[in-house]
């Protein structure tokens, strides 16, 4: 049954993804992403990408995030069923709501990422298809490179999403990055 | 000992300061002593001083592997306070604080104890309540503490961030007015000179490499300058406590961890209190020379490397500019680290050991500078009488086995968290 309730992103209250653009840079939320947490492979490990690598295409990608753990990231409505046989794992948990997915692309993308990420993002070291779980501005993120040239996708825990978005927007200021679509801005109040 | 005063300074000025005597002698070690203290930091030297002064025991040698005060005494951020949470600590540190108040005159060496107050900012309710519990306890036992309103804090420390966009809005602060800072090197030198004047042999560049134990009794130490016999041996080597105690076959509830510190370039008077940030790990005070001395949290892993690293320095810097946004352009001039003897409950050990005639003063974590006179005093007592004073009775080794740990932070047997 299709939900009557509205799904909300931690970044924008509207139905549309939040997007910001700058010189050689597009920073965008990628809502409607399905994330499946998989652990305990019942199949041969060789069939699955090891930590640091991924398999699949840009619609559906399996990321090796731990010695025995994967994330399946797929595009689609949040309730779409993933195209992977989850019986092949001891644990298969829908974690779509746990993560917020962002895409950052364009020639300036590596420079913005390098402000918060210690990984060597050089194309030799981190080619399309590579993935990593790492610290980014003190937040845990899953970072990977889809096949598309100069694009990086990342997942961050939903509760951190706005903090990360604000961090990235500020880091991208020197590329004159600005929000493209009008979307209600979030007040931050701490007392 | 030639007394120091404005008059002796004047007198010596006439002779172009050519006639100042040595602050302490540099004798060769004798073959045996009544008491040997291992470690020429503040604690070892204070212990020797009080052994001589309070107990008349002057046949004492302090053995230092390098130069006096080159350990944590020479690299600490010099906060002296007694604002502890637990009563046993409050009483001990208050005793020490009282000794500090008369120390310069007692030693005839200006240790520059500046009672400018130690202030901890309050931000959130649970944290404020914890500060109140702490301060009220101190007041009950007769120490000093006050709680300031936001406005009072602003008057006292205007450089804090009181803007509406402050990352951590300040709701008040906890202040111990009698607390303050002192000149760390002077503490080592002052105790050394005063101990020397009472006959204690201070021997530098003399590393203890073994402790000789015969039939359960310590009888002397092997050193890089030969064997030295002793009736009693006191260990006061801070970050190296496990190592030295290990020479007598002891294993201790201690891990060695790094604590970093740094100084900015000197500036004109800017900060009138010693400041602790209540919502994170950051604290700072300004020296008389003008630098801001800053520190943060432990690095958090066992280490004897005694040097700094970038992530922690950056984190402390971030806290500094978050708390005081106007200091962003102030520059760090030097950063370093010390090896902390972290115990399993975050509280020191000043005690007898299972080996007769062997005593330990260690486990000072990042807080032993303020204890220097107090621990020297009770450690001397413990060595002289072969039993602890009531102030250090709770700081024995058996507290772990018996379940009487003194856990200020309430984090349990995880030294890195204390």
């Amino acid at each position, binding site marked *: 049954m299709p*939900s009557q*309730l509205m*799904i909300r992103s931690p970044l924008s209250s509207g139905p549309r993804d939040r997007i910001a653009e700058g010189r050689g840079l597009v920073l965008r939320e990628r809502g409607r992403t399905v994330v499946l947490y998989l652990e305990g492979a019942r199949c041969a490990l060789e069939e699955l990408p090891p930590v640091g690598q991924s398999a699949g295409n840009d619609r559906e990608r399996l990321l090796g995030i731990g010695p025995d753990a994967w994330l399946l990231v797929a595009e689609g409505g*949040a309730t779409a069923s993933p195209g992977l046989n989850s019986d092949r794992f001891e644990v298969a*948990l829908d974690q779509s*709501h*746990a*993560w917020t997915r962002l895409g950052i692309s364009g020639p300036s993308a590596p420079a913005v990422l*390098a402000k*918060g990420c*210690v990984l060597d993002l050089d194309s030799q*070291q981190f080619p399309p298809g590579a993935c990593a779980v790492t610290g980014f501005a003190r937040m845990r993120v899953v970072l990977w490179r889809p096949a598309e040239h100069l694009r990086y996708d990342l997942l961050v825990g*939903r509760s951190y999403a706005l*903090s*990360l978005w604000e961090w990235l927007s500020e880091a*991208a*200021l020197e590329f004159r990055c600005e929000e493209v679509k009008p979307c209600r801005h979030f007040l*931050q109040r701490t*007392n | 000992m030639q007394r120091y005063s404005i008059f002796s*300074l004047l007198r010596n*000025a006439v002779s*172009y300061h*050519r006639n*100042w005597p040595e*602050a302490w002698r540099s004798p060769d070690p004798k073959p045996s002593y009544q008491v040997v203290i291992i470690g020429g930091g503040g604690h070892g030297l204070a212990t020797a001083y009080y052994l001589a002064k309070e107990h008349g025991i002057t046949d004492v040698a302090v053995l230092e592997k390098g*130069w006096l005060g080159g350990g944590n005494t020479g690299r600490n951020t010099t906060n002296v306070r007694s604002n502890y949470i637990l*009563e046993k600590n409050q009483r001990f540190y208050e005793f020490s604080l009282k000794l500090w108040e008369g120390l310069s005159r007692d030693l005839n*060496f*200006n240790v520059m*104890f500046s009672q*400018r107050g130690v202030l901890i900012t309050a931000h959130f*309710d649970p944290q404020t309540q914890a*500060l*109140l519990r702490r301060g*009220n*306890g101190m007041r*009950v*036992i007769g120490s000093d*503490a006050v709680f300031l309103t936001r406005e009072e804090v602003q008057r006292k420390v205007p450089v804090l961030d009181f803007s509406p*966009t402050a*990352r951590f809005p300040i709701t008040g602060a906890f202040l111990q007015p009698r607390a303050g800072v002192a*000149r760390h090197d002077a503490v080592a030198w002052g105790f050394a000179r005063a101990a020397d004047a009472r006959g204690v042999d201070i021997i530098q560049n003399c590393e203890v490499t073994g402790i000789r134990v015969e039939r359960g009794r310590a009888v002397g130490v092997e050193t890089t300058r030969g064997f030295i016999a002793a009736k009693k041996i006191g260990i006061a080597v801070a970050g190296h406590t496990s190592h030295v105690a290990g020479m007598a076959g002891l294993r201790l509830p201690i891990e060695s961890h790094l604590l970093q510190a740094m100084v900015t*370039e*000197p500036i*004109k008077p800017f900060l009138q209190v010693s400041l602790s940030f209540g919502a994170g790990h950051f604290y700072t005070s300004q020296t*008389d020379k003008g630098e801001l001395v800053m520190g943060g949290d432990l690095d958090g892993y066992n280490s004897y490397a005694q040097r700094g690293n*970038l992530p922690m320095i*950056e984190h402390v810097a*971030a806290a*500094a500019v978050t708390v005081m*946004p*106007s200091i*962003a352009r*102030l*520059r*760090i001039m*030097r*950063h370093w680290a010390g090896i902390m003897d972290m115990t399993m409950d975050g509280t020191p050990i000043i005690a007898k050991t299972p080996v007769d005639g062997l005593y330990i003063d260690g486990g000072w974590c990042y807080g032993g500078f303020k204890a220097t006179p107090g621990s020297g005093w009770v450690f001397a007592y413990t060595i002289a009488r072969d039993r602890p004073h009531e102030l250090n009775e709770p700081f024995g080794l058996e507290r772990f086995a*018996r*379940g009487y740990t003194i856990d200020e932070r309430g984090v349990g047997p995880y030294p890195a968290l204390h």
Partner: protein
Amino acid sequence: MNEQPFRNETGGLIDRARPVRFVFNGRRYWGWDGDTLASALLANGVRIVGRSFKYHRPRGVFGLGAEEPNALVQLGLGGRSEPNSRATQIEIFDGLVAESQNCWPSVRFDLGAATGLFSRLLPAGFYYKTFMWPPRWWMRYERPIRAMAGMGRCADAPDPERYEHRHAHCDVAVVGGGPAGIAAALAAGASGARVCLVDEGARLGGMLLSTGEQMDEGPALDWVAEAETELQALPNLRILTRATVFGYYDDNQLGIVERVADHRAPAPGEPRQRVWHLHARQVVLATGAHERSIAFGDNDLPGVMLASAARGYANRYAVRPGRAAVMFTNNDTAYGAALDLQRSGVAVTALVDLRAEPPTVLASRLAAAGIELIPGSAAVHATGGREVRAVAISRIDEAGVPLGIPREIPCDLLCISGGWNPAVHLHAQARGKPVYDPAIAAFLPGNPVQAERSAGAARGRASLGACIADGAAAGAAAAAAAGFQLKPAPLVTRAAIADDGTGQTPLRAIWRIVPAGGRKRKRFVDLQNDVTDEDIALAVREGYRSVEHVKRYTTLGMGTDQGKTSNTVGFAHIAAALGGDIAAVGTTSFRPPYVPVALGALAGMEGGKHFLPNRRTAMHEWHLGAGALMLQSGPWLRPQCYLRPGESIDEAVRREAIGVRNGVGLVDVSTLGKLELFGPDAVEFLERVYINRWRSLRVDRCRYGVMLREDGIVFDDGTTTRIGNTHFFMTTTTGQAPLVARRLDYCRSVLWPELDLRIVNVTEQWAGMTIAGPDSRRVLARVVEKLDVSSEALPYMGYGTGTIGGISVRVFRISFSGDLAYEIYAPAGFGTAIWERLMQAGAEFGIAPYGIDALNTLRVEKGHVAGGELDGRVTADDLGLGRMIKPDGDFIGRRSLSRPGLRDPARWQLVGLMPEDRNTPVPPGAKLVDGKSDRYLGEITSTAWSPVLRLPIALGLLSGGRSRHGERLYATSPLAGRHVPVIVGSSTFVDPEGKRLHA
């Protein structure tokens, strides 16, 4: 208008098409683009730039770059004001404002200089010997002492500029863009290695920018330009200029501060400075050398300058740093400086060489230029009031002691060269141990510990040719060590320089010129901190013999320059005073940073707003819209209460709490940690980590559990639910959530790897909300589908799933507040929608959201423990939870419980407290005393106003508390000036039988 009296018409690396206007000490001046503040001031004839630290003596520009001890200025205004800025490294730009510091009322006339009158009373360490009387007066003496000390002033407003960090990786990092560094980069770059070349200057060239040396093919700077073009063409090469490597850390990580926009306004969004974390596989240190000073009388007067600096001002900036100069050297390098100065229009009258037989080539060059050579002699002192006017020269004996009556030579510029110290700082930071080389009387890099090698002047190489060859070899070796195939780098081989036979004659290592009975004048070793040779001698005399003691007693090398020009000289003085050699004295430890680095730069983006990232729950925005006051709670932002117009916080909290007790309320509990456990051994695992039983828990039932640390102390509490036979859902407290997750994982993977279970942290997936109060069931029943919420179907501690608005939710009948309540977990994206549904459905029951303060009130009333009580020192028994401990079987912490200290009847136990007058609030954070001694018996851990009892209540921990019910004590808060009689009682104030829960 643009008159710069000491500037030459031609020459230099400045752009005369671009005049730059700046203000110094309130006066306007002109300089050229390419100038530093120091060069521009010298061009304008400004000689007194600052005042010294201790004696407030006038000081001028002494050096050329990072080594500068004297010319420190207050730069910029307002939030951009920067103290202690080295004029030698400030590139001027239009509108620059700077002023002298540490002087009042002005730099030319400074009242602080009065200290100089008493300077005999102020030897090193004088403050240790006085100010002890009257007792406790130190604080009063301290105030004026502090005011005299310090140097510049901190800004008085927040810095408006941004800072950031950046990570980078390379195969070979080359530090230093002088000839050695350039050659290294060329050699390494040719191999295809990823190379990063870093230099602190505004452009590449290093010393060549100031020496104007020649190669066989032409000016060396042409070669530099060609090399730069070639380097820039390499795809794998990055050049960072205006970038100082300030620290060399473990695993070959370099900390670099890049001055992005110190010399110009930053572009929008651009940082002022950027700190790079460069991860290098191999490092070449081509950091050059620092010229050092010689101690002689009044060697600090403005006009006394390092020879290499004077040469640099002449060549690089076309500035004549004086009208008439005398050179004083102990080595060859000052000869070139003399010739260059002469060529640039400074009248160099004499060159005084400590060596009796200087090299003849050099002597004849001087002769050709008409400069008198005075060998075997020394400058004994400089004369002049505020500036050098003349220098007194004497012949010296074997030991360096001046003989006879000195001859005075007038001059306004006195150039000194005491030889060169290789810049071994980074090598030493990388744990290398510098070794003393008597041939150049300096410390050279020792054996590298990390993957690094030094080259060029940094390794004591003197001639340009040797530096280039050395750099190239180091670059090639580094690339090879990083696994690259070497390829020839033609530019390196083309850089041929005919050997002119200079630089081979050893220096004469004398650094202290003391005439017999020469006590009148001060001989400075450390210019910044005013440390003299006498201070060092005094320290040694008083027994401060270790080099570290001398440093700390005299403050030698402890200034912002960290002794770059003074340390080795000082060590030599120590050696002399001890009668030993420098090698035995050793060095003080080199520590980062190599040059001081701004706190803002080190903080990067983390300073301020982004300091520790905040976490927000799924309903965050809703809370804001509903007027919630948000509180920081660890990383989380949580509603404290929802303020209605005109309400105070206390009123709001009461209203919310009463609303729950009497009707229904809704609270966000998303911040609780949530773990799912899967596997046949999950239940066994729970048995081992919790103090209570789990095997008996039926599916669809929840249970409250307590975990201990291994030392027997309560670690965390929460509920765990069996949602399938081998599938559990655990919640933890907000604060401990990450710790619990880590520690459980430790138990599983380290302690009991044999157990077959998996633990997944699902905290982020679920939004959590509790609907509580007598009406909560009715509200829930209206929205939830596919779940029977009747008490029979879903009893207290029951669990079920249902849907709300078509979204499946997990419903737990659990209560923290003590009322009928349900915890509802929904996929976070639907959190707000479901929250709104509940609010709508509850409207007719008067549902209201409540915050953590009301939640706290309710749980205190119920006697449930939380943060204040769970202080990391209590046992389960202290909290009255001892009966939960299962009779048998091990669990974490059990073994520790039998220790006497954990069973001591005097332990602090949980109690409830009420004011005796049933009216006066119990002071928060009070201690519990009996009024008879100066001990306290316990403390107040939580306070609240009870909505049911309608009076103030409190929880506390009290020694032997459970046996003291009914006793009268005082809750005393000296901090608040309050002392309230209280009656000890049970910690459960409402519904001790749990009727509400089971309703």
